[in-house]
């Protein structure tokens, strides 16, 4: 066990939507600066774990300890203080459609305070250059292509040099080349900030090149966790079947009730 305390610790966390138990007792630890990937069939609770860690959802049972603070039971204002140390890239971008590209990226810094307008402007300009969007500062987010929206989302998630960055399906629906370009951006940023990362994705091959470890979630339980490089040959037969996309195997058709 590393000397420093874990950046994130989930202890026997459970969460249910109506009749369905989405998470049935998840225990998980992530060391500071390390990168964990979450994979699993659709609606297996991957994104819910991200929302719990970001304090956007409350667990029904168990403890959620993020960056040294226990989130379960905290009020919205206290959660706000922890969230400011977390960057999040949402699956469908969640860009503010009433703000320009520049204002979107500047928003976290403006709300956190403690920075002059000048410093914010230079920080935002640097971030937009890093994601190759210099020159699109004054566009409204509605006018951008899917890829460009994704990059604005990345710039906004990383502008405040957060200690923890959460990625929800960062490359959903993108072709292999564009996917790799996105992961290049994520890797460059993580190398710079040494932030702890949790990334959820259904594109296992591309994800494996970005994270150190991968955890496999199935029907609300953490079935396996191991190094990303060897995920295709994982000892667990269900993980192997899932990663290799084999038709026959222990995984049966997963049913999802509408949440």
């Amino acid at each position, binding site marked *: 066990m590393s000397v420093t305390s874990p950046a994130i610790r989930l202890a026997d966390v459970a969460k249910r939507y109506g009749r369905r138990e989405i998470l049935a007792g998840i225990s998980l630890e992530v060391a500071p600066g390390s990168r964990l990937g979450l994979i699993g069939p*659709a609606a297996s609770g991957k994104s819910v774990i991200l929302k719990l860690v970001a304090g956007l959802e409350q667990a029904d049972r168990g403890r959620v300890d993020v960056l040294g603070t226990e989130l379960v039971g905290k009020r919205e204002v206290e959660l706000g203080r922890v969230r400011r140390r977390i960057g999040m890239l949402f699956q469908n971008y969640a860009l503010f459609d009433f703000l320009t590209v520049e204002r979107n990226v500047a928003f976290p810094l403006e709300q956190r305070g403690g920075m002059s307008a000048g410093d914010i402007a230079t920080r935002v300009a640097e971030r937009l250059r890093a994601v190759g969007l210099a020159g699109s500062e004054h566009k409204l987010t509605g006018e951008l292509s899917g890829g460009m929206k994704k990059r604005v989302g990345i710039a906004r998630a990383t502008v405040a040099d957060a200690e923890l960055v959460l990625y929800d399906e960062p490359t959903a*629906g993108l072709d292999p*080349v564009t996917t790799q*370009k996105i992961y290049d951006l994520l890797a460059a940023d993580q190398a710079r900030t040494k932030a702890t990362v949790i990334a959820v994705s259904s594109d296992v091959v591309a994800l494996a090149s970005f994270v150190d470890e991968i955890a496999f979630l199935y029907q609300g339980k953490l079935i396996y966790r191991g190094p990303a490089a060897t995920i295709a040959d994982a000892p667990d037969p269900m993980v192997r079947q899932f990663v290799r996309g*084999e038709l026959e195997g222990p995984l049966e058709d997963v049913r999802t009730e509408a949440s």
Partner: protein
Amino acid sequence: MTDTRTTAYVEFKGVEKGFAGKAVLKGMNLAVDKGEVMFIIGTSGVGKSVTIKHLIGLLRIDAGEIWFDGKRVDQLPERQLAPLRKRIGMVFQSSTLFDSMTLAENVALPLRKHQRLGWDASIEQARIRLAQVYMAEHADRYPAELSDGMRKRAAIARTLALEPEVVLFDEPTTGLDPVSARRIDRLIRELADKLGVTAIVVSHDPPSIFGIADRVAFLYRGIVHVVATPAELRGSPDPIVQQFIGGKSSGPMETPGF
């Protein structure tokens, strides 16, 4: 250049299409033979889905010609598209099932509308179609209760209900987990082998492309850059093709969707 005599079953000749002043297809040519599984691949944002929507008149081309079974179809008025759409089916990326109907009712809809089948007869036919896609036991469930992969299989069953000769697939495996994706691939392959259906599949999913394609058309910068079998594609010296297959971010390839 365009020869009037055409042997291909489906053919795009010099097709051009632009949106709000931005040209997407710039003189695209493609010939598809009967009973073949033809993949149309390329990066996001290159206009793959747009291409197949022209075949059944959901979009109108700006210039060029589209031929099907020896007849030109790109100028048909809306009223005359119905017969064409019964011979060419389409499965959308978002499955487009009606949430207010069960799977059986969804699949029975085209039968009820076109084959004058009574309610019970069409439901009974629908169950047979659902069995073909291994979804018989979910016939009375509602789409919202099922996973994306299962919804996609039901959508395929509905498209098969009218026994089309050609089926268009718009990114059938995108967003699905690996296992569901391979189940869809197997279904598409079975269509062609068992039912002799011609399948035109828009995709950028390597396991699908190299798993079930007979031939692959590589769409790049508005034209068909190369048409080849998967094996030829893998061995192709073309740096752009190699970058796409390897999924490498560095290389000469432009990615409009990035």
